[in-house]
């Protein structure tokens, strides 16, 4: 079986010469819930952006579903992100002018695979599944931090991605909300077979993942599965 995501000898160096990550070899399968941990500045987020096809490596290769991403154009990568990947960031990053429902609808409408009624039904289903059914018509500013982050998760799941990437998704949340978000991720991996990659500095939360990749100074120093 082809691995969902494979990184071979991958490195990312900024034009100024700063090395963000280096010597990354990683294979991620569907259904895995991977926590990427490490101290500040260890390159966790940089690794996530590379694996999420937002950034391109300076050296090495990334294979997504067996396909070398170096051969893909910027718009090919955009199409891939739209259809197969979902992002959640530390700050919720919802569009402030649009309701929770509209925010979730944006990627669905952009992809254009569903008719308007079906698209809205799917968005409401996602919001309901995350306990946000009542908040669908509210603007982000009317929601609590935890609710906003769950809307962002719903948006990440909008196009039924095979890979969900989250960058410190609980960084701004209290313990209870953080745990709730991690429970959602665990369920996405265990029950729905998606691969979930989460960057976190919280060791307690990382224990809930099925696999922990620890980064120091841009290198993987440990990779353990439970």
């Amino acid at each position: 079986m082809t691995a969902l995501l494979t990184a071979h000898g991958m490195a990312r160096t900024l034009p100024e010469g700063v090395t963000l990550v280096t010597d990354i070899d990683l294979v991620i399968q569907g259904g895995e819930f991977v926590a990427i941990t490490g101290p500040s500045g260890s390159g966790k987020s940089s690794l996530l952006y590379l694996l999420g096809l937002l950034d391109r490596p300076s050296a090495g290769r990334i294979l997504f579903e067996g396909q070398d991403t170096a051969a893909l154009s910027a718009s090919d990568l955009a199409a891939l992100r739209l259809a197969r990947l979902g992002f959640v960031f530390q700050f919720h990053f919802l569009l402030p002018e649009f309701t929770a429902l509209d925010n979730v609808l944006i990627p669905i409408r952009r992809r254009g695979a569903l008719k308007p009624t079906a698209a809205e039904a799917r968005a409401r289903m996602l919001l309901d599944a995350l306990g946000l059914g009542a908040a669908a018509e509210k603007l982000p500013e009317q929601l609590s931090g935890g609710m906003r982050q769950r809307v962002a998760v719903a948006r990440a799941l909008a196009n039924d991605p095979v890979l969900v990437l989250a960058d410190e998704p609980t960084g701004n949340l209290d313990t209870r909300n953080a745990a709730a978000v991690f429970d959602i991720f665990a369920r996405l991996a265990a029950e729905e077979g998606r691969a979930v990659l989460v960057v976190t500095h919280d060791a307690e939360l990382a224990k809930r993942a099925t696999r922990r990749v620890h980064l120091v100074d841009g290198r993987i120093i440990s990779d353990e599965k439970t």
Partner: protein
Amino acid sequence: MRLIIDLARGMLSRRRRQTLVSVLGVALGVAFFIAITSIMRGFQTYFIQQVIDVQPHIVIKDETRNPTVQAAQLALPDGAVSVNGVKPIDRVRGIRAAGEKLAMLEAIPGAAAAPILTGAALLRYGSRDVSITVTGIDPARYARVANIEKDMLHGRLDDLRSTANGLIIGDTLALRLGVQLGDTVVAVSPRGVSLQMKIVGLFHTGLATLDQSAGYVLLKVNQVLQDRPNVVNQILLRLADVTQAEPLARDIESRFGERTESWEEQNRNILTVFVIQNAIMYSVTGAILLVAAFGIYNIISTVVFEKTRDIAILKSLGFTEGDIQLLFLVQGLIAGFLGAVLGCLIGQVMIEGLAQLRFSSETPAGNDRFLLARDWRIYAIASAFAMVSAALAAVIPARRAARLDPVQIVRGAA
């Protein structure tokens, strides 16, 4: 596409006041464009209307545009033939076979033709002499090609027929000669013929050259006065469709050979002035719209700057650079569109306001108000102009937005 428009509207709605200011800038540009164009076009249209109204649309003259080609040159087209000292053939000048040509011209649908004979004459009354141009007309036919009847102060064109040797002159000329309606003057032609003539009518056209040195008599009378029996030296044509004047004039000239001028050719100097006037007008109003475009550039730049995070998130969601560029281009177009709509309304109000204005002194043409063109095409041009400049203004910030690197933004914010 609907999604892009929805996103664009959402983003602009957050900057309501700034959007309003730049929309107002565009609106003022559009409004001034409409008002100024309306004034200029109104005047030009009025002027052309006057010309079309008063003057015949086509004049056929008893001359050729180019000297006739000499027989020797025709016989040896490739030869180096030069004929010097050629004198015009001594023939009776005038349009030959005028009657037949007149019948042919009358057969053109929508055309009315009138033959005239013009010539110089000296009017003598007591000790005063004034030289004038006498036009011999057939009143019934002439009335169909030139609108002199409406300018008559006293008498009518038909009075020429009922009075022997009747003469109609301009009011200024009457003043210079010191004659009144009913007085008898002596007309002397360059050929030495002198006739006693009775003033049967006075006119005032507002055109100085006509009012002080033009006279109308019967065609037959002028043929006697000029000693050119049965000669017609011009045929005047009036058309139902004035836009056909120029092509028709060319057609007549190629068929008859006589020099034929349309009203456009006769007034070419003034029409050229109009072209320059329009060029000035378009550059001034274009400058206003250019300034307005900077307003749009400004707001789109601000929105791009403020929305870097949103741009990053849209890109991470799978929006392409093209999508992002379109998103901000659409915002510029929305501002341009709103400006165009508002500008058309303000322009309409300005035109209504200008229409109420009255000048204290009359213009030479006898108007005390602006002559305004009301044409939907002016609005259409102004709106299109606004939309295009708005789009151009939005292109630069939109391209910048499209090139933003989401990783740098997310990293900076996180």
